[in-house]
């Protein structure tokens, strides 16, 4: 084996490269010059076979630790017992490393047994973290990057990895719905876009994707969040909302490990709203009829004998389970990791269900010392039984408790009594199945022709095949369906809707990484290209009168005259060039510079350029710090960079023909077309400029470590609707174009405490972040009303100087308690103030006449706070006492507002109300109340319905017990742990609705609780077994 090559040979090769591509050639040449004086390994040394055991300071074996020979790529890993064996040059040095521990170097010096005791890493300074297109040591990072280990993620009984990092990363707000197979909303450092999507970019094993619900959390080795521009800019035009990098587990050399991890549990709604019972309801509605109707007795008091609790009718305690088996190991030539996972999540709404199977195979083939080939293949199959939550929740909230839900197979007819539809019938008449198949595969070859050069070519594909089938049963509004006839809830014909979706994506990355150290200089240069094509297609069809037998749910059945079919497709391509330079001098001064040129098919002007620069100062390594005892680590860093967001429809720049416009000639319907859309053909990506300053420290001999970041993110060229004159005939009268500016400013603080006594090990970590979101300029763009609720219009207004989706409401001042207050409701001219044209009466809500014009109308609305929290908090504690481990994770937000939309919306005069509304309503007897009098109608949107969204939740509590090794060896087990866990054990909040965490809705109206899935609480029992 010869690692050393004559310099002239290298030069020849490099001169040839120079002709191929001047750019990369120059960079290679530069490296060559740097390498000319570098050291090489000596050859033909005697070699020793060494064995040993790696343990931690508690004497426990460290499985999967890497053992490698310094200055070479040769290496191995420890097995489950911490044992290893390796061949090493006699005078070589072994490096032991494992995530979470400090690296350790041992001179061989002729020893043949080397046992290593690894110390836990304090702030994991030497931890290798994954950054875009490469890895970096934590101490060299100049950007704001947070890392969460796979074991932290798989601990929680939740579907996606993002849900599991809730509260663990400063500056990241995660809102997840309890609905099975729902994707949580993730906001890294605030909401940066109104129309281009505010979710981050996901990169799984180097392949960019937008949805990670197919990734089994048990397969994840680590998750990194790239928060600032210095770290994210390498992803250029798509990185503006931050980047989440997921790395899946790989096999390690050594004995084959077989593990089985499982948990089984139940879920339930963690909080329900108490609705009025039949008696309260009848009293309320009949009083409301006197107050605001014609005084008729609308609810017969005789019907209050039965009282239906509609939520308990449609909700249940549900079952969930998660099983994972993995086999991993490796040898000289191959490392392998194989896993199978199965998950079931029955939602807490009846008929709702999700199950998923995942299979993963990650293999590494070492062809020789210089060439490695990796294949990472995963398949996931998901089955969802969906329910229409919108109508189910809305109807359960508003349905009259005097109506029976179902009796002897017949439904109570709520809609026949001017009420909403029967929610149970809604759910049971609808069968909505979604099948997902997702195959992801990546293969890459990594060549290390020279010790300082790594070439990598990676090709990834993703295929998705999904099928949705919705069958709606026929049910007439007569006594075949209902206990009594009538009402509007009926479905005259059964219908079947089928949608077949196919999506494909390939991405080809080619990178060259040059790594060189000389004297006090450390240099890493990455250059690369990437190309990608994404295609999706969906074909839909529907028919009515399809028989109810599920075996006949195909489009060949039913009424051919009713058939509808359609296709839609989207195709986009990207081609990019990227470069990153990492340089450090004397481990003190750090520089990261990145540059990415992105070509995107969705813009007329295809190319965008995204630079970033980051600098760092490892103060701790300065001479003047040598004698101090306070800091164990101190680093100051700063960065600036530019990022993009190109998440706009690929046809946005084209004026396209609107087809299918019907008209009837000679009694026959034909279809025509129009060309009315006014478009901006020069539409482009949104551009984000972000600056970040951070300080990392560790004191008290490494026991307390922390990180503070201050950032400012300004989105320029943000897409916004510009109103255009109606004269131009555009159907919606708006033009989507890049004119607005949005700003997010904030501070993040994260602290960690590592504590240790004789038998107890514990870590405490907490983080708090503050973010302020503001639209700083509309530049002719239209301020947007959003958050439409019920019949009373919008609740939010996105305007200059306000947060995206800020509430914009009438200001509630309580109710009119007495005649004096009514008489005193005047403006400055002394005129009585009218509310929507009418003088108020006792028990009505009173609003501020902000413009003092004597009438309360939409012009009296004003900004009333945002759904975006000011502060996000997270706290985690892990305690190990002998064989028992306990971990607690808490999460909360402060400063957000929630609009109780379900309470504000009344659809029908006989809609039910919450028990507290019925009980506390203003009456002459209860004249001091601030709850308005009974009312048949919806009242205007006002701050009366706006509540604080502050909450603090015990996200997860887990107590585990690890059986001692001697007990296990009998059964050939190397590890056996069992645990009980609870997700969302308890939530502290003053919010009166189902959940203060609202994940549905667009950026303009996300804080409205309208038909939110209640937060679910899970209790589960689980085991971890390793053979």
């Amino acid at each position, binding site marked *: 084996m*010869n690692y050393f090559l004559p310099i002239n040979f290298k030069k020849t*090769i490099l001169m040839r490269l120079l002709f*191929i*591509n001047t750019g*990369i050639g120059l960079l290679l040449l530069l490296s060559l010059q740097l390498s000319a004086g570098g050291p090489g390994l000596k050859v033909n040394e005697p070699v020793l076979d060494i064995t040993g055991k790696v343990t931690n300071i508690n004497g426990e074996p460290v499985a999967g630790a890497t053992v490698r020979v310094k200055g070479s790529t040769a290496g191995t890993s420890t097995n489950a017992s911490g044992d290893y064996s390796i061949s090493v040059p006699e005078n070589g040095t072994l490096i032991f490393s494992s995530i979470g521990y400090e690296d350790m170097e041992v001179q061989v010096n002729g020893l043949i047994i080397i046992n290593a005791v690894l110390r836990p890493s304090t702030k994991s300074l030497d931890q290798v973290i994954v950054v875009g297109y490469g890895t970096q040591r934590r101490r060299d990072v100049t950007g704001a990057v947070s890392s969460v280990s796979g074991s932290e993620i798989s601990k929680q009984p939740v579907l996606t990895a993002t849900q599991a990092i809730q509260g663990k990363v400063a500056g990241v707000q995660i809102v997840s719905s309890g609905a099975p197979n729902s994707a949580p909303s993730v906001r890294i450092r605030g909401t940066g876009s109104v129309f281009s999507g505010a979710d981050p970019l996901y990169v799984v094993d180097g392949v960019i994707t937008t949805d990670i619900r197919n990734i089994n959390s048990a397969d994840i080795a680590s998750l990194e969040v790239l928060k600032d521009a210095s770290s994210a800019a390498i992803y250029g035009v798509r990185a503006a909302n931050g980047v989440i990098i997921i790395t899946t587990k790989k096999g390690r050399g050594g004995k084959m490990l077989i593990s089985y991890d499982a948990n089984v549990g139940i879920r339930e709604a963690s909080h329900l709203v108490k609705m009025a019972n039949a008696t309260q309801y009848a009293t309320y509605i009949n009083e409301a009829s006197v107050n605001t109707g*014609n005084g008729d007795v609308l609810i017969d008091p005789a019907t209050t004998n039965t009282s239906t609790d509609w939520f308990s009718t449609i909700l249940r305690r549900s079952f969930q389970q998660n099983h994972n088996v993995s086999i991993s190991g490796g040898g000289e030539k191959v490392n392998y990791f194989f896993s199978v996972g199965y998950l079931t999540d029955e939602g807490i709404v009846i008929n709702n269900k999700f199950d998923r199977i995942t299979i993963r195979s990650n293999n590494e083939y070492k062809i020789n010392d*210089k*060439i490695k080939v990796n294949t990472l293949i995963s398949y996931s199959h998901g089955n969802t039984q969906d329910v229409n939550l919108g109508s189910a929740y809305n109807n359960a909230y508003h349905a009259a408790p005097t109506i029976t839900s179902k009796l002897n197979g017949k439904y109570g007819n709520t809609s026949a009594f*001017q009420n909403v539809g029967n929610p149970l019938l809604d759910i049971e008449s609808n069968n909505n199945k979604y099948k997902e198949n997702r195959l992801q595969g990546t293969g890459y*070859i990594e060549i290390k*022709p020279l010790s300082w050069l790594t*070439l990598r*070519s990676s090709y990834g594909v993703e295929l998705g095949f999904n099928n949705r089938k919705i069958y709606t049963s026929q049910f007439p509004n007569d006594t075949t369906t209902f206990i009594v006839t009538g009402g509007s809830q*009926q479905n005259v*014909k059964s219908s079947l809707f089928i949608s077949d979706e196919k999506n494909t994506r390939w991405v080809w990355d*080619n990178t*060259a990484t040059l790594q060189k150290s000389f004297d006090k200089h450390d240099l890493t240069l990455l250059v*690369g*290209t990437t*190309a990608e094509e994404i295609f999706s297609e969906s074909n839909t069809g529907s028919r009515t009168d399809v028989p109810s037998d599920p075996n006949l749910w195909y489009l060949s059945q039913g009424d051919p005259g*009713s058939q*509808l079919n359609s296709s*839609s497709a989207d*195709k986009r*391509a*990207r*081609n990019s060039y990227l470069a990153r330079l990492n340089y450090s001098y004397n481990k003190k001064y750090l520089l990261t510079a990145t540059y990415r040129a992105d070509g995107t098919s*969705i813009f007329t002007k295809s190319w965008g350029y995204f630079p970033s620069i980051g600098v760092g100062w490892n103060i701790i390594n300065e001479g003047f710090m040598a004698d101090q005892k306070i800091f164990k680590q101190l680093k100051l860093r700063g960065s600036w960079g530019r990022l993009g967001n190109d998440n706009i429809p690929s*046809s946005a720049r*084209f004026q*396209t*023909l*609107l087809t*299918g*416009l*019907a*008209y*009837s*000639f*000679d*009694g026959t*319907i034909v*279809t*025509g*077309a*129009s*060309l*009315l859309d*006014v478009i901006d053909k020069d539409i482009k990506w949104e551009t984000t400029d972000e600056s970040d300053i951070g300080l990392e420290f560790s004191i008290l001999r490494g026991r307390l470590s922390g990180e503070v970041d201050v950032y400012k993110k300004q989105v320029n060229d943000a897409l916004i609707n510009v*109103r255009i*004159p*109606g*004269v*131009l*005939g*555009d159907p919606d009268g708006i033009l989507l174009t890049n004119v607005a500016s949005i700003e997010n400013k904030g501070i993040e603080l994260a602290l960690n405490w590592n504590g240790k006594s004789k038998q107890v090990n514990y870590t405490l970590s907490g983080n708090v972040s503050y973010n302020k979101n503001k639209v700083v300029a509309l530049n002719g763009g239209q301020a947007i009303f959003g958050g439409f609720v019920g019949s009373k219009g919008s609740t939010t207004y996105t305007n200059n100087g306000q947060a995206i989706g800020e509430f914009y409401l009438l200001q509630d001042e309580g109710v009119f308690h007495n005649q004096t207050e009514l008489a005193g409701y005047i403006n400055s001219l002394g005129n009585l103030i009218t509310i*929507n*044209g009418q003088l108020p009466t006792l028990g009505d809500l009173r609003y501020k006449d902000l413009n003092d014009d004597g009438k309360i*109308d939409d012009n009296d609305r004003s900004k009333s706070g945002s759904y975006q929290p000011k502060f996000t908090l997270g706290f985690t504690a892990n305690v190990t006492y002998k064989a028992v481990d306990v971990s607690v994770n808490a999460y909360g937000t402060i400063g957000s507002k929630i609009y109780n939309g379900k309470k504000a919306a009344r659809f029908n005069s006989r809609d039910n109300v919450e028990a507290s509304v019925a009980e506390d309503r203003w009456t002459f007897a209860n004249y001091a109340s601030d709850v308005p009098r009974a009312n048949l*109608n919806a009242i205007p949107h006002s701050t009366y319905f706006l509540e604080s969204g502050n909450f603090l939740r015990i996200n997860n509590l887990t107590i585990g017990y690890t059986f001692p090794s001697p007990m296990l060896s009998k059964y050939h087990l190397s590890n056996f742990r069992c645990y009980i866990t609870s997700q969302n054990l308890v939530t502290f909040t003053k919010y009166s609705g189902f959940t203060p965490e609202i994940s549905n809705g667009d950026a303009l109206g996300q804080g409205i609780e309208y038909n939110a899935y209640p937060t679910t609480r899970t209790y589960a029992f689980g085991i971890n077994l390793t053979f």
Partner: protein
Amino acid sequence: MQQEKNSYKLLIWVIIGSFSMVSCKKDFLDVQPQGQITSEAASSDPNIARKLVTGVYNQLYQGGFDNDVHGIIFAMATDVASDDADKGSTALDQAPEAIGFDNFTSDLDGNNFYVSRLWNGNYSGIAAANQALEKLEQSKFDHITKRTFIGEVRFLRAFFYFNLVRLFGGVPKVLRVPANLADANSDEFKTRAPKDSIYAAIINDLQYGVDSLPLKGEATTQVGRANKGAAQSLLAKVYLYQQNYQKAYDLSREVILSNKFALISDYSKNFRSKIYDNNIESIFEIQTGTNADCNAAVPFYVVSQGPRVGGLGGWSDLGFGLNNPSQDLVNEYEPGDLRDSITIIYIGPDSTVLWDGFVIPARNRVENDRYNYKAYYGRRTDTYCVTGNTDRLPKNIHIIRYAEVLLINAEAALQIGNASDAFTDLSLIRQRAGLLPVPATISAIWHERRVELAMEQDRFFDIVRQRRAGTLLRALGKTFVDGKNEVFPIPQSEIDLSGGKLIQNNGY
């Protein structure tokens, strides 16, 4: 050394591969929309012009509280704003916009969204017409086909402008497609042309239609397309508004003498079952039908005016209960006028049976006293959307029918001193309504226009034309201001977008 050499060869190939990958697919980033026709691609379709013409007809389907040409908001501006109808429904429904339209209160201002719906709806129709005309000019149709299509599209454009000029007075005159965004931003699209200039454009378009369109029933014609009679009738009506009585008389006379149209003996058939659509009396009506998409009708036109549940309830109602015939209209009918109970659904103390057999329960279960029978659709006998959705019940809507041509002829004849023609026309109308002839005075003709065309979305324009809107409406307690309320306010948003170049109507 062999292995290293191979490695280097591989290295070279990888690098060559990675950097040439892009250049070998030069148009890699040139991706056209999938499954959607771009405007450039459309030009290559020989049939595009025909599709765009159909697309202009489709503009007549705007409505449903969104952009509106002849939907419920148009009914607000024509029936509810007049003495024929009240807002209807519950007190809070459609407040305050409809209250502004009903009573000319301060809620009728440039911010009332109804006005922008009407403005945008008609301009959307005009833009579609301009697009179709541009592509028709480029098309390779034979001369006659091309002229016929152009005639139809110009007829429709004139119809949209006729609505606009009556709703708002002078408006921006847009007779072409803007070349690009900068052109669209030019003053031509932002400033109001004088009312006369708009009328000139309307007359120009309709005259083209009169000259180029075939007579009803000719081989190439299709039911539903504008024909020569339609262009003549609408142009006659426009001349009536222009007080050019001679031309109004001549054109309406030509329609009468063409013998293509006649009064149908039973007045009710104009508004009942679909089997009577496009009967002998029909000159131009919005065509509707039932297709799988359920989109071939004006959304909510029927449902918004349908009888509404109220009081004790207990039945599946038919709609939102808007646009209720007024007591003043009820009073206008002479005893024995057959049209009274054909035009108005009266909700009595006992149940009411409608023509298709639907039973509306007693008044104490219904919200309002009266509903518009002419906007009623017989769901029990006539077909509609296969899914059972009732948002777009396929109700044809009359734009102009032969009875109105007779009334135009009568009024124009009277004005030019031809009393005998006026008497003949009027008597035909009255005879069908079961009434005896009366002398053809102007007030008799105007009375006849009111009851004949009641609830057909014409009355407000008519009384403004007759210059007596103020007198009539103030008598009903509406705060109509002369010199102001004859037209509606220009949408404030359009004024703002024009940078103040679009001038608001007087008094708003």
